[in-house]
């Protein structure tokens, strides 16, 4: 598919979303043009807004990768939300006990904890799929509910501070500096160096997918499991590894919050980021590098929702997100079909 064709879908989706959004704005008795202008000005119109968009986009990149990568192998990971939650708790607990370590080591250790915990959680779905053939769509969704309950139990029983719904703070050496150390204009926003980690992961995922044997095997399984098996690619192993990797990516998404912003784990901080990862992956057509602009787009929407919240409820953004997914999914089916003909 040519570049121009590939852009047609997202542009069409943007148009449809603007139309639907305008209707919702009108339903709330406000002027669409005013709301859209305010949304743009509050996000990309000033340094603080840009910083907040970057902060929101950081976990979205990781969650988007966590959906896109296994989708290349034909697997739907709807569990990024749970993987993110489990990864966040692990990161917070490890980070709170890392006071004696030097900064670079402590930071890496926290990231590794998030990745390991998220990966392990996703591996449950991987194991259920390869061992019992249980479909990953439903098991990953169930694991989201289980993660929420498990984290709440562990937290209230052992890990949360007294009288609070969050864990102890990370040791100073385990925290990631804010992005303001690189660009002082961003001072005050929550964006941190976690953004660079997420960007690096997008690059690494592209390299893995298109330049390594494992990536080739994943794509082969996604295109035709039967043909892949005939070519002696181990289906079970590829499936398991793809889901475990996805979980690790989702887990790392939590560092934007835990390591770069609040410095502790708090329940409900994900705010559906894991599910938004699906939207990001769909918009990016599962290409790791396209994840970056897609995450920025949904980051803009989600920050923009907060900006216009005093005029129109921010829940409008959730509706628009769904509209974008449907429109892009329809567009890629229609354009792809014409492309083949």
């Amino acid at each position: 598919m040519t570049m121009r064709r590939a852009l047609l879908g997202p542009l069409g989706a943007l148009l449809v979303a603007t139309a639907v959004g305008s209707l919702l704005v009108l339903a709330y008795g406000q002027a669409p043009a005013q709301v859209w202008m305010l949304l743009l000005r509050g996000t990309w119109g000033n340094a603080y807004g840009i910083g907040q968009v970057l902060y929101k986009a950081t976990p979205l990149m990781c969650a988007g990768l966590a959906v896109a990568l296994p989708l290349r192998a034909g697997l739907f990971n709807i569990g990024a939300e749970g993987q993110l939650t489990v990864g966040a708790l692990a990161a917070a607990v490890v980070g709170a006990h890392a006071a004696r370590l030097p900064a670079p080591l402590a930071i890496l250790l926290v990231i590794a904890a998030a990745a390991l915990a998220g990966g392990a959680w996703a591996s449950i779905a991987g194991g259920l799929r390869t061992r019992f053939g249980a479909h990953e769509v439903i098991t990953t969704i169930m694991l989201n509910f289980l993660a929420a309950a498990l984290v709440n139990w562990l937290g209230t029983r052992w890990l949360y501070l007294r009288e609070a719904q969050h864990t102890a703070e990370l040791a100073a050496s385990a925290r990631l500096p804010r992005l303001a150390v690189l660009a002082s204009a961003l001072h005050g926003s929550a964006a941190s160096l976690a953004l660079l980690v997420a960007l690096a992961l997008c690059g690494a995922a592209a390299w893995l997918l298109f330049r390594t044997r494992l990536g080739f095997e994943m794509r082969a399984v996604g295109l035709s499991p039967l043909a892949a098996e005939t070519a002696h690619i181990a289906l079970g192993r590829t499936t398991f590894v793809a889901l475990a990797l996805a979980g690790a990516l989702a887990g790392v998404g939590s560092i934007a919050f835990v390591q770069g912003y609040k410095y502790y784990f708090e329940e409900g901080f994900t705010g559906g980021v894991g599910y938004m990862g699906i939207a990001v992956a769909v918009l990016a057509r599962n290409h790791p590098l396209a994840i970056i602009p897609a995450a920025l787009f949904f980051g803009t929407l989600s920050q923009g929702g907060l900006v216009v919240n005093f005029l129109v409820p921010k829940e409008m953004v959730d509706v628009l997100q769904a509209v974008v997914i449907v429109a892009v999914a329809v567009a890629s089916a229609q354009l792809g079909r014409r492309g083949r003909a």
Partner: protein
Amino acid sequence: MSFLLQVVRITIPYALAALGGALSERGGVINIALEGTLLVGAFGGAVGAYYTHNALLGLLCGIGAGAALQLVHGLACVRWKADQIVSGLAANLLALGATRFFLKLCFDSTANSPRIAAWRTSAPFLIMALAAAFLAHGLLYGTRFGLRLRACGEHPEAARTLGVQVARVRLAAVALAGALAGLGGVWLAFDQHKFVDNMSAGRGYVALAAMIFGKWRPLPACAACLLFGLAEAAQIGLQASGIGLPTQLVQMLPYLMTILALTGGGGRARGPAALGTPYEAE
């Protein structure tokens, strides 16, 4: 006895959603969207009953809302051939976002609707669910439409060759699924006499798993739903009894059972052959 009644009562939304899932998936359309359909059904039921002060009209609104959401899903993936899982997930996000938006718009709340005029008993729902189960069974195995629907799910090309309008049949099945799951959603709202944000709480996904556990057949699917009703009732019972188990662990029960069901206790499940594939008319 009252515990058994509780189980049957709690099973109602699961069973209605699972029946919808069976009809839709036997026609070849994967239905993750049941979760969102329960939610809009509940919202439609609550809004309808609130503004008309009439439970029956509320019920009809809920059914209509469910069918409407499923038609969006159906149009996207049957008519326009979008990926069925993506479309279903989007429908769920749409349901969650739209109910929150209109909850704010209609009742200026982020949590729940005001108290609505609803029936005090689940008996009408129980009768409707039982009737729906047997009607779905009869429809699927005893009518021309059912035969065509199953043909669309197994081998759409063959069905088309015999003159069946595949897209139209699948859309009809999806709309029916929406009406059934919408009715299940109305029970959720009526049972609490109000709409609560995200009150479907994963029941649509659980119902889908129960339907798979029942091997895509209406009556076994409903029987499987009883198991999940049992799990939820047990969870409520355990929480109320004050036995030393942590509530969070007890809450996990239905979700753990869902995973257990999918690991194929009772033989490997095989779905309709053409499940998930759009049909290309030439």
